[in-house]
């Protein structure tokens, strides 16, 4: 900030400083210097006073000394020659009997940041390392780090490094910690200070003496240590346990970081640590300092990535206070969305509903999109709230609701009826670009069900000349095209007008090209157009993608306790302000860890394409190479909607029970029931189950939450036998996994088909028993052995026993892999 009259002030100050009367009066002299520093911190350049200030340095008054040093350190780099004068008086101070003066002189000597003075500084620094007073040693140790950074090229004397290492055993804890810091800087090229077993144990033993800053530093450095044995690891962890629940958030966070890095190979230990740390983290969420609250909430988001259900019971802690700033509220809502479960969903929605009418527009919109996210699993309740909000007729709320509905409908197409009803009449309230774009998209895609759609579009088309936003014009064009496909009579005229405008009058090239493209497309015939414009429908199976699968701790452990989770960019990934959902490619990335474990258990790895539909390929060369039968691949398309599934399932079940005890040999339809022993599957989260199934191209359609009984999962897939040169051998398999929990899984043992391929693979032991075509009543008669297991009921059409058996192998292996992972 420029300061008016700066030069005048400097001149006046110089006069005062060189006035002998002032110099002889200590109090006046000090006050004048005070004035200089004040002008300096206001941003005025007072470097011209350097020589006067150097003179002021020679005084017995410690306060004055300190003030002058503040000045000298700021301007030394501008006056290297004059600074030489200061060194003399500083070196003299280093001999002072008062340790405070010694440390002050030493610190400022190293703070001058002048490479030319290094030779004068080294000697006092060496002496400082052996000083009696701890405060001098503290300064001297860090002084070497400063010196090193001043001349990074020159090597620091090995003797100094050795001395610093020996000072790690200094009785003063701050000197010890400073040594660590200095060595980290000096030995940066070699990877920092050597962390070996004796040093680690020494540091750990002295951890209690340090204050919280020292503890944080030591814990951070120790992250590099790798214990040599498991016993040592657990010794360290139990020693640090009390720090994990420290009331000081910095210590707690640093300890958790250390836990995560040391026990990276033991996921169970990491998870236990996360559980233990959740208490202190929650306490930090209620801290008096809101910046601290923010930091804690951001880190809880990280934790939730790996342990989604961790804080479910504490959801009330994340309700927003009404005076909290918007940035905290937004994060808290994101956490609330993650914590939703059957018990608390009503309370959370009720709370979020209250935020939707917040004065702060950002908060209101964030609350609405949070409700939309919850709507993916609890669509009815959320849609009810969202439609209620439309009644408020406020532009920012309506806009956010329409955008949220657009996103929701893409993921859960079954909501479309409610959404279509709600949309009527909200075009009047919409003002902003994003909201109108969302509305246009919805009108285009669901135009046949919204009676007023053509009229809404017509109004916009009439006003297209005055429309400023390119995005809206593009969306309008596409929406009109789409509507034309389903309601040609009403739309034909306006489409003609719009195309004419776009091609003849529009100045924007993109817009014009797009219109020309559509124009030519229409020439190719209505079927072609339909293929292009309606080709991409949302996948109904997206609806069951309830949440993200739990990620391994290692994915985020690196950025725990850094500024990364707090930075602005971190949230953007989830932000709602994007274009139409179809532009966002849904890319089911295979979970790296999971696919590794699966591929070694000879399952066909199926590559998932980057586009929405998964392609199948038989990469099972190594896996089933020994197998006699042809390799089988699974495929998800054509998709089966939940309704279709239910219909088919009930139909076949009826067919099956009808036939009673006799074996089904009629029709080309197979019905088998199996028992697989892998009880731990019950405890794995729906997300990971789903992810695992998707990896091998089995789609789960519906499942009960974990730990509930009876536990059920419904799934389907298509099998393809690629080898067969004859007819394309595809079958549809529908399946149910059921676990009633009690040891009532009675299944008959019949190893009639033990010569299956699975047996040849040596997988028989995992497949407990296998029974083809058994009826329900027979099962209950035969089975006497009681044990917990999962009843698998499969239904195949057309019948292909080999394919079915292979599919069962795949399924069993997935389930077993999941169970073993849980252990």
């Amino acid at each position, binding site marked *: *900030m420029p300061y008016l009259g700066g030069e005048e002030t400097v001149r006046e100050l110089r006069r005062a400083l060189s006035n002998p009367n002032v110099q002889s009066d200590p109090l006046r002299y000090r006050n004048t210097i005070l004035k200089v520093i004040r002008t300096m*911190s*206001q941003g005025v350049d007072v470097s011209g006073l350097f020589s006067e200030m150097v003179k002021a340095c020679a005084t017995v008054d410690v*306060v004055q000394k*300190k*003030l002058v040093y503040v000045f000298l350190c700021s301007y030394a780099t501008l006056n290297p020659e004059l600074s030489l004068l200061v060194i003399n008086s500083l070196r003299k101070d280093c001999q002072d009997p008062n340790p*405070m003066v010694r440390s002050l002189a030493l*610190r400022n000597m190293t703070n001058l*940041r002048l490479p030319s003075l290094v030779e004068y500084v080294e000697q006092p620094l060496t002496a400082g390392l052996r000083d009696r007073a701890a*405060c001098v040693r*503290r300064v001297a140790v*860090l002084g070497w*780090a*400063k010196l090193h950074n001043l001349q990074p090229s020159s090597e620091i004397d090995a003797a100094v490094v050795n001395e610093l290492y020996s000072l790690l055993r200094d009785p003063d804890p*701050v000197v010890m910690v400073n040594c660590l*810091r200095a060595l980290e800087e000096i030995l940066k090229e070699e990877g920092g200070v050597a962390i070996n077993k004796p040093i680690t144990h020494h540091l750990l033993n002295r951890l209690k003496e340090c*204050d919280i*800053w020292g503890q*944080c530093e030591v814990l951070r450095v120790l992250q590099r240590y790798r214990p040599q044995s498991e016993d040592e690891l657990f010794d360290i962890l139990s020693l640090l346990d009390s720090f994990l629940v420290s*009331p*000081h*958030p*910095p210590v707690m*966070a*640093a300890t958790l970081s250390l836990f995560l890095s040391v026990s990276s190979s033991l996921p169970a230990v990491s998870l236990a640590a996360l559980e233990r740390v959740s*208490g202190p983290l929650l*306490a930090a969420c*209620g801290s*008096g*300092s809101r*910046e*601290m609250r*923010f*930091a*804690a909430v*951001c880190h809880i988001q990280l934790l939730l990535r790996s342990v989604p259900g961790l804080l479910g019971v504490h959801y*009330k802690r994340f*309700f927003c*206070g*009404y*005076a*909290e*700033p*918007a*940035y905290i509220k937004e994060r808290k809502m994101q956490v609330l969305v993650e914590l939703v479960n059957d018990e608390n969903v009503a*309370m959370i929605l009720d709370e979020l509903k*209250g935020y939707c*009418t917040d*004065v*702060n527009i950002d908060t209101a919109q964030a609350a609405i999109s949070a409700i939309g996210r919850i709507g993916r699993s609890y669509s009815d309740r959320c849609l009810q709230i969202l439609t*209620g909000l439309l*009644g*408020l007729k406020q532009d920012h709320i309506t806009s956010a609701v329409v955008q949220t509905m657009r996103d929701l409908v893409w993921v859960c197409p079954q909501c479309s009826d409610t959404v279509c009803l709600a949309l009527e009449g909200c075009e009047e309230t919409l003002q902003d670009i994003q909201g109108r774009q969302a509305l246009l998209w919805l009108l285009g895609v669901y135009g046949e069900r919204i009676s007023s759609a053509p009229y809404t579009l017509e109004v916009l088309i009439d006003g297209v000349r005055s429309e400023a936003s390119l995005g809206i014009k593009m969306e309008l064009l596409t929406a009109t095209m789409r509507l034309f496909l389903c309601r040609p009579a009403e739309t034909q005229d306006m489409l003609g007008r719009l195309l004419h405008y776009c091609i003849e009058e529009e100045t924007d090239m993109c817009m014009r090209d797009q219109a020309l493209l559509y124009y030519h497309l229409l020439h190719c015939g209505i079927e072609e157009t339909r293929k292009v414009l309606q080709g991409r429908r949302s996948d109904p199976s997206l609806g069951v993608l309830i949440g993200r699968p739990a990620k391994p701790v290692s994915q985020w452990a690196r950025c725990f*306790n*850094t*500024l*990364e*989770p*707090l930075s*602005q960019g971190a949230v953007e990934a989830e932000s709602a302000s994007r274009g139409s959902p179809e532009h966002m490619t849904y890319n089911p990335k295979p979970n790296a860890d999971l696919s590794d474990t699966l591929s070694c258990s000879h399952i066909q790895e199926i590559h998932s394409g980057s586009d929405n539909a998964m392609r199948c390929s038989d990469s099972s060369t190594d896996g089933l190479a020994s197998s006699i039968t042809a390799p089988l691949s699974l495929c998800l398309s054509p998709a089966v909607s939940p309704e279709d599934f239910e219909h088919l399932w009930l139909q076949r079940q009826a067919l099956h029970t009808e036939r009673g005890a006799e074996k089904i040999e009629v029709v080309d339809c197979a019905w088998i029931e199996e028992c697989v022993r892998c009880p731990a599957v019950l405890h794995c989260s729906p997300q990971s189950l789903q992810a695992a199934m998707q990896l091998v191209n089995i789609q789960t359609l519906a499942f009960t939450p974990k730990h509930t009984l009876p536990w059920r999962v419904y799934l389907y897939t298509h099998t393809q036998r690629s080898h067969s040169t004859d007819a394309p051998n595809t079958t549809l398999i529908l399946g149910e996994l059921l676990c009633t929990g009690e040891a009532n899984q009675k299944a008959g043992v019949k190893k009639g088909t033990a010569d299956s391929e699975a047996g040849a693979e040596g997988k028989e032991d995992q497949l407990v028993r296998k029974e083809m075509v058994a009826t329900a009543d027979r099962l209950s008669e035969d089975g006497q052995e009681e044990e917990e297991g999962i009843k698998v009921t499969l239904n195949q059409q057309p019948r292909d026993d080999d394919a079915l058996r292979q599919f069962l192998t795949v399924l069993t292996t997935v389930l077993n892999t999941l169970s073993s992972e849980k252990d």
Partner: protein
Amino acid sequence: MISQVFILSSKGDHLIHKDFRGQAGNDIVSTFYEKVTALTGDQPPVVMNHKDLYFVHIRQGGLYWVATTTVGSSPFAIIEFLNRLAALVKDYCGSLSEKSVQMNFALIYELLDEIVDYGYIQTTSSDVLKNFIQTEAVTSRPFSLFDLSNVGLFGAETQQSKVAPSSAATRPIQSSREQGGKSEIFVDVIERMTVVIGSNGVLMKADVEGEIRVKCYMPSCSEMRIGLNEEFSIGKSQLRGYGAAVRVDECSFHQAVRLDEFDSHRILRLCPSQGEQTVMQYQLSDDLPSALPFRLFPTIERDNGGRLLMYMKLRCDLPPKSAAINVCATIPVPKGSVSLSQELSSPDQSAELKPQSRAVVWQIARFAGGTQLSALFKLEVPSLSSASMLEVGPVGLSFELPKITATGLQIRFLRLSPVQPGPSQRWVRYVTHSDSYTIRI
């Protein structure tokens, strides 16, 4: 590791600027201020970055306290450091404001010099720092008649002098050695309530976060013993004895507190260092021992003239002798509300419509326990629809309850041993604040 620390006023004036590592240019302060003011929304987020440099800042006393650092630093440590720095400045300067920072800049530079060296935090303990800090604090205290009224007729002690003036604890800790050893110690029990009451009057959430803060002006430290209620218990599992038990869910102590008498007699022992420190923190959720301090009974309807009528009855359920002060109810109203006419039940209340924040703010300076106030607000809303009713509420209440703790925690005694030679004064104060007190309609 901290590269720089600076303190800015809310208008962006540079008050303090200290560069520890000499790596960044001087214009970085202006860069920060530009970034902060360019953000939308009144509350900028805590962390911002400019190329590789990260700014972490907190707001205290209307000032920006900023540290610059690299991405790998611990946010917890830096935020805690800035909070601690602000607390130390407050201890040394007496109060925290733009003016006090401006007047004491030399002292703050000195403090920073001792606290941080080369970007590494050395110590923040006021016990250690007091040996190094030489500069005297400059305070400006407005002349107050209140000081005079403490002196009774012919110097006799009046009743009033038994109550410490509210400004007693806002003075610098250092001046004690000059002022002839006015050694005092303040123990504050401060609780913050977070409450959500549903539209049907059911309590949905109640959290209390409390702390015991000691502010010590004793020149020489001696051991202090703080006795809490004997029936104080921690955790849910413990059985309650007879009488009103005081219970908290979780409790943590300052590391200097010795707890050898805590289990048997609920006594905390510590040697307080000069300045302010939090001795104990505790939390209680969902199970308050006493009734909620406030209940609201709203009736909202539309009259024939298209006006919105809000009839609010607010009841204070505190014990009759005590009172709440600075009560302020914020009632969100429909967008586009034009004017407000009001009927309040007593003259010491006031209410106004704040179109900016779309709310009616109803203020009550003092609200005695066991009483009830009512207000009728008539709002002129041109575009009133039935859906607009949804926009009314939830009501946010802010208040201060002096001499009351929501958990019932009390300090039985406060003993200093060995007994101080000079005259020493011990003060115990209780206060409960509303952190967030929300009543749905």
